[in-house]
């Protein structure tokens, strides 16, 4: 076909374009025609179709996501909010931290290694684009049943890909999740998060301003991978029946990305960059239209100047290509030479591909002809907005009525003991070491806490000991039972995990993984989860700084559990005060903080022992979470506790077993008055943690909790080490650490090793 220029498009209004194949709906196409006042060129159509896809335009989610802004708590810490590549938070001493979580679910099912690897690559470029040096990654993951044959294909590949990319970039992996549930069988969730650190003055934004400034593309050459718009295809139901719909997968080059990091940071340090944008989904279409529409003027791009890996690519393909490891910078003309020099130093290919103009149009040329002439705002920001219908599903009542509290409980101490062993050895509760030891925790030499701690913690200033902590949590089972509460429970857990290590929670990022928005039941789950999260963040005073929505995680009619994953970022003045999970010393007293109720809906116990999901999730009390957090932070700052572990899935017994195994020290537990042993051990009531208090601090610690009104119960003592060490629930049973370790650490190697 001959080149479809703007001139040509005006002259030939009746030419049929393949808008449907590119994922546009009829009314959306008509809207494009209306905006342009003519039919789009092929290149323009390519841009609108990728930028207006669900993945890039958030067309189904936008109306709900607004709540994060509307309900945002007043926070002095927020330096850059939602809308940029990633949010930025002030952590004091002149430092700012940026963090974000993203999904790479669909590609990771098709090609687990590369899908996961490029997921890490993408999130890290978002962090660099803010001006920050990436300092750590986290990876919340969800797979189908652990013993399903396809999980053996997907999980090892995903883990190797995350490790392969992150390790090669030199980013310590300091946390994440691994959850197994049959609902994720055809739709594994591969979320990846990254944190970056910069000085306040180094914050950079994605905008192109200043007429005459040059637009420089640098990094990898543009190739034919990812064309067909992985972003379009991530915007539709994943349907095995249509292999042609499988998104093209790209191969990542972490080495190239490492060079990108170093050369970008060097350019930032010399103040060479006016605006910057990474190339992710929708490639050049996205980068140019976003840079231009966030800036003051227009932009003119010579597409011929884009370095290509394949000279046969058409301009449409170049615009849509999602080749990895590319960035776009806006640089003043006088600084271009220096910028290119730095790229050359790092062996990074860099080319001026255009410039910022006075006008307000984005114009793209190919072989001297104008093939795109659009208002960039219409591409980047004026995508369609849907008010999708939503309705509480008919089955919700029945699900909630199927009360887990009525399930048969262990009838004898021996049965209780067997259930404890089954729980700590179940795939979801088992040690994730087989996975996390494939990740580098040590690189950069600033890792204070990493897996399996409650939160990962990184030192950011060697002199003062300033540090940041991050935890990611989500519980699709809770969210299925009640999406509003489920989202708040995810928030509460991540918040608690951060506070348990001694850091003060500051801000939130999220990754919202759901089924098809075209299903009103899914849309209801989505709306409820957002409402819950936004209300929760308002109450806790932790603003949402950004995040990601992944819809269409669905095969046929079967959607995944609604799975909002929440990341909470915290700050700690001096990392020397951090609190670890492991029991440190024999004789220290164990206290349970918070209230324990009969709450088993969605619990690990109900899943492991009864393969049951029903009832209501645990209640959330965010004021209590805040109080618990304050106590944990004060106790760590003032040296009143030597170990702490938050209680979440698996309840108290899971937490005590983990702390005991990590420290190599046993525990003697006494069931407190007013609780039966079963509820004491397995309840999943929120707002709780267990702490180990040195005897010398007992009074002070009790006084503090009493004065603040936090319920605190003495439940036992750290006791025993070496081969004799046991977890002894007095009057019920005792299990040796060896036995517990075998159950807890043997599961994943048994399946995947």
């Amino acid at each position, binding site marked *: 076909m001959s080149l479809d220029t703007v001139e040509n498009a005006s002259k030939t209004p009746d030419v049929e374009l393949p808008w449907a194949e590119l994922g546009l709906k009829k009314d959306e196409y008509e809207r494009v025609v209306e905006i342009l006042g003519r039919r789009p060129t092929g290149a323009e159509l390519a841009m609108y179709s990728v930028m207006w896809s669900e993945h890039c335009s958030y067309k189904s989610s936008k109306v709900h996501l607004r709540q994060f802004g509307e309900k945002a708590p007043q926070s002095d810490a927020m330096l850059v909010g939602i809308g940029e590549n990633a949010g930025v938070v002030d952590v004091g001493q002149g430092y700012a931290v940026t963090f974000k979580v993203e999904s790479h679910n669909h590609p990771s099912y098709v090609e687990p290694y590369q899908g996961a690897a490029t997921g890490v690559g993408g999130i890290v470029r978002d962090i660099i684009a803010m001006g920050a040096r990436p300092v750590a990654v986290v990876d919340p993951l969800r797979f189908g049943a652990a013993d399903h044959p396809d999980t053996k294909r997907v999980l090892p590949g995903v883990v190797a890909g995350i*490790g392969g990319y992150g*390790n*090669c970039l*030199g980013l310590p992996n300091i946390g994440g999740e691994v959850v197994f549930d049959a609902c994720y069988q055809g739709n594994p969730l591969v979320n990846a998060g990254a944190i970056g650190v910069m000085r306040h003055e180094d914050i950079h934004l994605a905008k192109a301003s200043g007429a005459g400034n040059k637009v420089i593309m640098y990094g990898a050459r543009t190739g034919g991978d990812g064309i067909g718009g992985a972003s379009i295809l991530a915007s539709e139901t994943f349907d095995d029946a249509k292999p042609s719909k499988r998104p093209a997968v790209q191969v990542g080059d972490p080495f190239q990305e490492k060079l990108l990091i170093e050369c970008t940071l060097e350019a930032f340090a010399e103040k060479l960059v006016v605006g910057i944008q990474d190339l992710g989904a929708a490639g050049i279409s996205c980068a140019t239209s976003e840079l231009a529409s966030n800036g003051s003027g227009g932009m003119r791009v010579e597409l011929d100047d884009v370095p290509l890996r394949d000279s046969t690519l058409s301009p449409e393909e170049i615009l849509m290509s999602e080749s990895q490891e590319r960035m776009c910078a806006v640089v003043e003309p006088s600084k271009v030479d220096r910028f290119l020099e730095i790229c050359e130093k790092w062996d990074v290919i860099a080319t001026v591909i255009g410039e910022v103009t006075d006008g307000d149009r984005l114009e793209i040329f190919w072989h001297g002809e104008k093939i795109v002439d659009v208002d960039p705002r219409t591409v980047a920001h004026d995508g369609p907005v849907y008010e999708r219908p939503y309705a509480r599903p008919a089955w919700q009542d029945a699900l909630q009525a199927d009360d887990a509290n009525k399930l048969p409980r262990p009838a004898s101490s021996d049965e209780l003991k067997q259930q404890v062993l089954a729980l700590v050895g179940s795939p979801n509760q088992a040690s994730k070491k087989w996975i996390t*030891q494939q990740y580098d*925790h040590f*690189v950069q*030499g600033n*890792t204070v806490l990493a897996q399996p701690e409650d939160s990962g913690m990184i030192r950011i200033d060697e002199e003062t000991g300033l540090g940041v902590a991050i935890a990611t949590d989500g519980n699709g089972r809770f969210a299925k039972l009640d999406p509003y509460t489920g989202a708040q429970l995810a928030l509460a857990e991540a918040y608690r995990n951060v506070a348990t290590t001694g850091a003060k929670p500051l801000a939130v990022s999220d990754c919202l993984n759901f089924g098809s928005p075209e299903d009103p039941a899914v849309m209801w789950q989505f709306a409820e989860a957002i409402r819950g999260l936004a209300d929760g963040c308002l109450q806790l005073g932790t603003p949402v700084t950004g995040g990601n929505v992944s819809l269409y995680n669905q095969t046929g009619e079967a959607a995944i559990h609604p799975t909002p994953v929440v990341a909470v970022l915290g700050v700690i003045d001096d990392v020397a005060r951090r609190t670890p999970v492991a029991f440190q010393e024999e004789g220290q007293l164990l206290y349970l903080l918070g209230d324990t109720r009969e709450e088993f809906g969605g619990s690990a116990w109900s899943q492991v022992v009864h393969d049951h999901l029903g009832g209501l999730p645990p209640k959330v009390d965010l004021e209590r979470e805040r109080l618990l957090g304050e106590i944990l932070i004060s106790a760590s700052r003032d040296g009143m506790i030597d170990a702490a572990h938050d209680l979440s899935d698996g309840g108290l017994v899971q937490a005590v077993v983990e702390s005991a195994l990590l420290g190599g020290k046993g525990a003697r537990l006494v069931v407190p008055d007013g609780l039966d042993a079963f509820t004491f051990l397995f309840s999943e009531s929120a707002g709780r943690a267990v702490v180990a208090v040195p005897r010398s601090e007992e009074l002070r610690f009790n006084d503090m909790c009493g004065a603040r009104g936090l319920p605190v119960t003495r439940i036992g003592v750290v006791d025993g080490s070496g081969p004799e060490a046991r977890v002894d629930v007095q009057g019920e049973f005792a299990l040796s650490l060896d036995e517990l370790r075998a159950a807890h650490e043997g599961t994943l190697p048994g399946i995947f090793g």
Partner: protein
Amino acid sequence: MTARIGVVTFPGSLDDRDTQRAIRLAGAEPVALWHKDKDLKQVDAVVLPGGFSYGDYLRAGAISRFSPVMETVIDQAQAGLPVLGICNGFQVLTEAHLLPGGMLGNDHLHFICRDQKLRVENADTAWTSDYEAGQEIHIPLKNMDGRYVADEYTLDKLEAEGRVVFRYLDFNPNGSLRDIAGITNEAGNVVGLMPHPEHAVEPLIGSGRTDGLPFFTSILKKLVAAS
């Protein structure tokens, strides 16, 4: 008087800054060296740090080994300059034939990151004199291609000449022959090992131990004594 210890940055080096920090904590002066520069800036010793230089593409260390800086390092190492290769640096040293044998992918085919127990077998090298022979230490290990291999003749020779410097204890993390974690050349000035001593220099960070610091104090003492 202190010693100047160079740390080479190859494209894809990751632990270069960490190694500089370790050198500083030991009391010596770290000097950044760049792979495209033949000039060693008159340093008294060189560390080739860990990482994935050139992405470990082709073979770990294979491309870096041909960098301009390595021309000088090879010459001077043969003339006695103390050189330490950590992880990727060790791989570069075997590719450059400054140390015998080769490095292959871990036998279990996964990357592995753990706090590794080692025995110091040779405390007479330029980099290990602050340890005692037979001492057991813990040093973080993290690698994909950590399997040390050499033919039987070479292995026997290394053993006979006391050139096995470190051996894995309790657990062989990568299938290295004869549990070898680190070796030295005949002169004892060039040492390579897979574990990362630079990540065991501060009590709060990483594994929480400081068993790696003696590497850097050993070389510092030797250099100061020599000057």
